[in-house]
């Protein structure tokens, strides 16, 4: 394996995230390759340097400031809901408002029309009733016609 490939493994080796078998191979190579050993040493120093940087902490009262922001967010949402009625007048241009209003009217009208239109079930019942009545009339008419014919034959 070339040094280029060994060097790629040094980061994982530094983190102790290699198998025991791979660790043995890496350590064996580091003992025999000065360039790779130097690079590993530099990685180690970089690691210690970064870890030596003091941990930064927030100013005291972090939770209190957070609570305040939470309260403000809730208030803002409430204000938005209440102010919607007025807010939309400011946020949309005149053409947009007209378009929205027309769309709303059309939507309501179409919905109302659909709601009031007889359903297919209702239509079928109505048709059935008409057909039934017509058939009843036809039956009685045919009966009236047939009576004299029977009598005439005889």
């Amino acid at each position: 394996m070339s040094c280029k490939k060994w060097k790629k493994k040094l980061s994982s080796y530094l983190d102790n995230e290699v198998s025991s078998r791979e660790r043995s191979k890496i350590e064996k190579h580091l003992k025999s390759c000065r360039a790779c050993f130097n690079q590993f040493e530099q990685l180690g120093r970089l690691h210690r340097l970064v870890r030596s940087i003091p941990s930064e902490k927030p100013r005291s009262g972090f939770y209190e400031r957070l609570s305040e922001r939470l309260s403000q967010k809730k208030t803002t949402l409430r204000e938005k809901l209440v102010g919607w009625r007025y807010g939309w007048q400011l946020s949309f241009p005149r053409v947009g408002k007209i378009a929205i209003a027309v769309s709303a009217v059309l939507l309501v009208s179409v919905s109302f029309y659909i709601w009031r239109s007889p359903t297919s079930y209702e239509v079928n019942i109505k048709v059935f009733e008409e057909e039934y009545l017509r058939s009843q009339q036809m039956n009685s008419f045919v009966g009236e016609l047939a009576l004299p014919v029977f009598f005439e034959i005889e």
Partner: protein
Amino acid sequence: MQYSDEELVERYGAGDGESFRMLVERYQDRVYHIVYGIVGNKDEAEDLSQEVFLRVYRFLHRFKGKSRFYTWLYRLTVNVCLSARRKRKNEPGKIFSLADSSKYGDDPGEIELTDESFSPLKVLQNREMAETIKSAINSLSEVLKSTFVLREFEELSYEELTRLFRCSRGTIKSRLSRAREQLRRKIEPYLNGTV
């Protein structure tokens, strides 16, 4: 009584507001440290850290316990930082404001020195070196920087990083290797002690 993260989440879901406060106090320092490591500005770190917990408050009910709570929290933290940086992509961000730290010049606290020929303290006391390191870390891409910061600051394992970033172990290895190699080349003179 010390509750686990998962217990606090459950209690919060049952309506115990105090549990949310306990979660915040438990993680505020760590979240702040990560955010500061990524954005490098104290005011912005404060603002974004607050934003992280605002989102925790808003989305905590979505946490189903499929991962550890801190994995979910850190993922949210990284996303908040990356979103903020994307919005400010024309404005170069800063990494650690080492020059702002009041610790330098005062008692630096305990620093482990395993390599006596190399003293991180001496390196960091040199403002020019500190700025160079800062600049080098800042030059990393956001993804490499986030992975590097979480590994170095929070000491998350590769397994935890794969879950957080939702990628393979090989990807995490590659990112850390690339990040370290880029940093090593940029600050090599300081690592050799020749500057």
